[in-house]
């Protein structure tokens, strides 16, 4: 087990460098000049553009820029400076990540509790009314685009009923985050419910289930331990990869609810060609993905004792 974890951690190093290099190259091959863009529609002094580029190191050859950037991150935890307003990227990330983490946590809790809950109900009553209505409900959620769902929730709950604030304020209160979290977690909730339902319905017919019932175990134990534990593997896989998606992919939801998080920052950095900010964001998201996928692989062994890591 220890050796397995060590090996996985070592594997992260080339993945980390590979992804950052790829993103770095991709950003710098985008057309356009981010420094000239700062001047708006007005003519820019070429001397000032040169000077700004020199200050930010953008006049260096690409390999040197990448080298300086990576050594800055690894040696000093320095992600560079934004082109846009001279802010250090660490400060920008430090503002955006806590907000996103807050939103992602709520959304994750929402999809975990309601997704698995609905899945269990549907799985245990496969083919009956509850199952069918949950099927329709999840299909509906999957088919509604996120921005439609976002605006509907905003309109109904904030304006027609007046129960919630339409936007997240600058204080980022937990109560304000509920609506965006429901929208963000909605789609995944549907997937989790469908996955849980299918595996549970299948495993209900498994031999070990019949054995457990035949042994006279109480129903709670049969379902809670024997059935759940075996049915959770695909669900856990999905939930794990979803953490990364919740953190980085909330662009639309963040925009609708005025959440100043990572998703909006990524979109903005792409249009403004803010290389340092974008690579910094992606670097952290890559680490999140790597760590969660390791945790999930380890969870497999807990859920299914037959899986062993040497």
């Amino acid at each position, binding site marked *: 087990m220890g050796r397995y974890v060590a090996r996985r951690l070592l594997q992260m190093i080339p993945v980390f460098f590979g992804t950052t290099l790829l993103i770095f190259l991709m950003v710098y091959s*985008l*057309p*356009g*000049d*981010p420094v*000239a*863009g*700062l*001047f*708006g*529609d*007005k*003519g*820019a*002094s070429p*001397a*000032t553009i040169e*000077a*700004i580029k020199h200050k930010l190191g953008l006049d260096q050859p690409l390999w040197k820029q990448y080298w300086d950037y990576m050594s800055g991150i690894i040696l000093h935890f320095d992600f560079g400076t934004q082109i*846009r*307003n*001279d*802010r250090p990227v660490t*400060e*920008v990330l430090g*503002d955006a990540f806590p907000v996103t983490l807050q939103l992602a946590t709520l959304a994750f809790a929402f999809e975990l509790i*309601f997704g698995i809950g*609905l899945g269990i*109900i549907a799985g245990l*009553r496969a083919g009956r*009314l509850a199952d069918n*209505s949950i099927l329709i*409900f999840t299909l509906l959620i999957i088919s509604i685009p996120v921005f439609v769902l976002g605006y509907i929730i*905003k309109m109904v*709950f*904030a*304006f027609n009923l007046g*129960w*919630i*604030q*339409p*936007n997240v*304020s*600058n*204080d980022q209160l*937990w*109560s*304000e985050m*509920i609506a965006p979290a429901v929208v963000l977690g909605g789609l995944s909730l549907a997937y989790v419910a469908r996955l849980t339902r299918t595996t549970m319905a299948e495993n209900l017919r498994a031999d070990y289930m019949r054995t457990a019932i035949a042994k006279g175990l109480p129903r709670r134990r049969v379902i809670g331990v024997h059935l759940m534990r075996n049915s959770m593997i695909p669900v856990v896989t999905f939930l794990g990869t979803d953490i990364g998606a919740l953190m980085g992919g909330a662009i639309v939801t*963040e*925009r*609708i*609810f*005025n*959440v*100043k998080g990572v998703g*909006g920052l990524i979109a903005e950095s792409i*249009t*403004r*060609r803010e290389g340092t900010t974008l690579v910094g964001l992606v670097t952290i998201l890559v680490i999140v993905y790597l760590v969660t996928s390791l945790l999930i692989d380890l969870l497999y062994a807990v859920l299914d004792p037959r899986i062993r890591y040497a």
Partner: protein
Amino acid sequence: MRGATHAKWAALATAVALAATACGGGDDSGGGGGADGIVSSSWGDPQNPLEPANTNEVQGGKVLSMIFRGLKEYDPKTGEAKDMLAEKIETTDSVNFTVTVKDGWTFSNGEKVTAQSFVDAWNYGAALKNNQKNAYFFGYIEGYDKVHPEEGEATADTLSGLKVTGPQTFTVKLTQKFSTFPDTLGYAAYAPLPKAFFDDHDAWLAKPVGNGPYTIDSYSKGSQMQLKRWDDYPGDDKARNGGITLKVYTDNNTAYTDLIAGNLDLVDDVPAAQLKNVSADLGDRYINTPAGIIQTLSFPFYDPAWNKPGQEKLRQGLSMAIDRNQITETIFQKTRTPAVDWTSPVLGEEGGFKDVCGDFCKYDAAEAKKLVAEGGGIPGGTMKISYNADTGSHKEWVDAVCNSINRALGNNTACVGNPIGTFADFRNQVTTQKFDGPFRAGWQMDYPLIQNFLQPLYYTNASSNDGKYSSEEFDKLVDQANAESDIPKAVGLFQQAEEVLRDDMGAIPLWYQNGSAGYSERVENVTLNPFSVPVYNQITVK
């Protein structure tokens, strides 16, 4: 089981409602009413550090308009340049100016505003090493080529044309005659700076200190800035509210919904998608006034195919093929006004706004078709109008312009749009002369003078002359106008230059952009100045 699901939803919703009501009271848009009431206003993250000579867009401009006052201040209604800190600005030859700064003004940290405060600030703004984006504003002052050379290292630290001659007086020497120079001094780049700016630059940037009617109370970058009224402010335009809270929004739609929900007092950019609902949502609490912004189509005069003699008829014909009225009504919901010249209505008639374009800016399909044919037709048979597709509603109007041209010319392939993914890429291609057809151009005035709408854009090799338009006659008239010390005569000469521009159709004027704003029932006396920035100090809270 469905009932149970519903119960869960209801429980969740109730929890949300309880939480929302519990936490709603602490919002900072509350504050007291009356003279001490705080106004909350929508904001975007400023693009540049908040240095006066480094701010070239509206979001940073909002802050500067509150914390700085310069030698001149533009009247929020008429745009006229009026003395603010200037006691007097004298000249006999339109080259050498003597500026006397009023006594009794201080920065909010107590430091006196002297002639030195201005000279230091201007030298800082001009110097190449400080990377200030508005450095070109100091380009008329003698010695600029030394502190900000086009290439290579600067050979001087200060502008030789600026000399402090007394505690409250300094002289300015320009490189050429420029009679309206004093009227440009209301622009934020010319603001004075306190010693603290130079002594501890980082601390100053974290919390800028100026001499305007407001002081910055707190500033958290990327989310909000709280400004408080400065009670000891010596000027006449004291703040009539207790302070302004600028809140950053992800886009103008969310800001608008917060205004409707009562969490925000002022939105200064009503989203295009909401324009249809504005009168129902806000009634008369919606403002739509002209701003000093004009949109044009520029031509690639650097391309031989677009720079042949006789092609002025082609350009005039294209101008007449654009149905400006229809496009401004249907696409912009009247937040744009069809253009009749190359300046802006905010200048007023005295300032030089006049229907110079005449019939050339009116839609006339038959005449357009005739002129285009006389002008040799569209080079290559099809022209591409280039624009950036990432912001604004450029795609919509470019497509509409092309439809209008194609319809007028009876040719479905005469004009097509050419979207460019990002603004940075678009500007890159514009400044490196990559486009082989017309491209969109927009100009937001720096100061309300007719000179600012003509010289930087159409003078030979001027800084923003992206299409490389060039006309000896136009240049000559502009030079004459700048040398003319009698202002009405100077304006007349600029208008003559504009007529030259019309006869060449150096760029097609499309429409003037309006500034729009909506406000809550809590506040009154909300107006926008000609720069489409709200006049914050006049807002009162009920």
